[in-house]
């Protein structure tokens, strides 16, 4: 097999076929610009670029942002004023937000929502109005532009927000409060869930018709926070609906499952996603990679290299990646992401790219031994 381009390597793997090497890539939003990045990319590191495929507006909602002493020091108060009432949320923004990529701070952290928009039962009605009022319009320029710029250097993915129930749990209510609301005001929770679910059909269709190769739910799933009952009742139907629409247009469906997945592993096996992205085996997750590969036979797994290993230094990084390669022989249905949670030092990018440049498929014990020996 001849050398594939980075794009071919990633796409071949995403489609469940054997590429020439294990694809290694970094997400665009965390990609530094400089010498180490250039060296790593010259060796084997591709680019994974998630871009929006629509613009949204709420024609009957005023959004007012306030900063300063009257809104709470160090935070931004956002008011959503609708004809039926107002909800507020409070954000904490670190230095760099709005000046770096994708609303990330200099150290790559998104604004913290320290007070969420749904706090009491009445807020559900206001947020329901906002969801119903939202207008989505296709806008493929960001994807087309990224595809032109990247060429064969990587892939562009149409990005979708959290799935409907995750939107409620993570973004609008907050997980512990969600549990309480779900027990006390289930009708309200379910009514809003159904409205979001219905509304999202539009963005699934927009994403499916986009020029991107694949569509991704940024779901941040964690099996300790989302129990199997909730997952089965509210998450899986949304995935199935989205997958039907996306698959009809010949696109792949990817989900960002970066948490502990052991408690949901059997259910995930039944989900229609083609690719599980940001998978974290131990030490950060609780499901070993080999077990996940064996259990999810019809899925591709993209492993997020664990930040906790980066924190231990270069030797630990080298050992972890070699051990990982040994655990996945022959290395099919697998890709490796430089990080899904933080910026990566130059030194670590170079270590990973040096090793993964040599990870031609199929892997064997002898091949991994040889890679290890070549490191000296």
């Amino acid at each position, binding site marked *: 097999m001849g050398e594939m381009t980075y794009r071919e390597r990633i796409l071949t793997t995403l489609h469940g076929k054997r590429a020439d090497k294990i694809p290694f890539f970094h997400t665009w939003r965390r990609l530094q610009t400089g010498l180490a990045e250039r060296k790593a990319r010259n060796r084997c590191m591709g680019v994974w670029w998630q871009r929006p495929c629509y613009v949204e507006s709420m024609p009957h909602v005023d959004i007012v942002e306030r900063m300063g002493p009257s809104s709470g020091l160090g935070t931004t108060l956002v008011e959503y004023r609708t004809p039926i009432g107002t909800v507020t949320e409070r954000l*904490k923004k*670190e230095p760099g937000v709005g000046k770096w990529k994708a609303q990330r701070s200099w*150290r*790559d*952290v998104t604004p*913290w929502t*320290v007070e969420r928009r749904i706090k009491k039962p009445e807020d559900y009605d206001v947020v329901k109005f906002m969801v119903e009022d939202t207008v989505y319009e296709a806008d493929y320029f960001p994807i087309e532009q990224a595809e032109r710029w990247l060429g064969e250097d990587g892939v562009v993915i149409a990005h979708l927000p959290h799935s409907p129930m995750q939107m409620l749990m993570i973004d609008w209510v907050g*997980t*512990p409060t969600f*549990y*309480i609301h*779900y*027990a*006390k005001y289930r009708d309200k929770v379910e009514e809003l869930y159904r409205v979001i679910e219905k509304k999202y059909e539009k963005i699934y269709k927009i994403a499916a018709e986009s020029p991107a190769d694949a569509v991704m739910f940024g779901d941040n799933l964690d099996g*300790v*926070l989302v*129990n199997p*009952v*909730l997952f089965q009742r509210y998450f899986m139907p949304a995935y199935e609906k989205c997958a039907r629409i996306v698959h009809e247009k010949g696109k792949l469906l990817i989900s960002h499952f970066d*948490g*502990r997945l052991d408690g949901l592993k059997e259910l995930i096996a039944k989900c229609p996603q083609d690719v599980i992205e940001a998978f974290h085996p131990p*030490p*950060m*997750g609780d499901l070993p990679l080999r077990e996940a590969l064996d259990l999810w036979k019809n899925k591709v797994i993209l492993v997020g290299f*664990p*930040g*906790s*290993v*980066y*924190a*231990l230094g270069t030797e*630990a990084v080298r050992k972890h990646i070699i051990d990982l390669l040994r655990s996945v022989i022959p290395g099919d249905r697998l890709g490796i992401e430089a990080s899904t*949670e*933080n*910026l990566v030092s130059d030194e670590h990018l170079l270590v990973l790219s040096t090793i993964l440049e040599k990870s031609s498929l199929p892997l064997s014990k002898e091949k991994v031994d040889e890679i290890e020996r070549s490191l000296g």
Partner: protein
Amino acid sequence: MIEKKYLDALRENVFNFDFEGVKKAAEEAMKAGVHPVTAVTDGLAAGLKIVGEKFEDRECFLSELVLAAEVMKEGMSIIQPYIKGEELKTKGRVVLATVKGDNHDIGKSLVATLLRISGFEVIDLGIDVPTETIVEAVKERRPQILGLSALLTVTMPEMREVINGLKAAGLREGVKVIVGGSPVTKEFAEKIGADHRAADAVEGVNKCIEWVR
């Protein structure tokens, strides 16, 4: 015997997650003259303990543990005024904080709940807590244990700063430091000089119990 009836009702309402039921049970228990401390320890806390044990054995979910704790709070709001001037006996005192720059709350709050179920006094300093505030709290409140949480690899180094701050203030020897959060590994905990890395909330609380035994 009569007291048992009221304590059972308190306990059952907690593990059945009944918000209204627990308030009614608490009111009835107080009216019947049940000792308020007993109502808390042998009623509400006993109910929460059952849910905590089930959670530990993976027989119930985090959502249920959070709910049970919330139901207990409802019951406490009725009983609390009756226990003025009295003290609930505690196993020990723990200061908890999510370190500076990190606004994650769920893990730390879960540990706080489990510690309270287990009989500890918990001083929860909250999230994004500066090192100086944590060191000051240890100096003033003299806990046996300090628990630090971080969920980001970029904030983990703050744990080292706290430990160094304790050393500089001459407080390190008097307090056990336990660290946790999904990116925090055993190796990292050793490297920064913590006493223990909690593999999860339950294991962390068990370690705290072992320390004060």
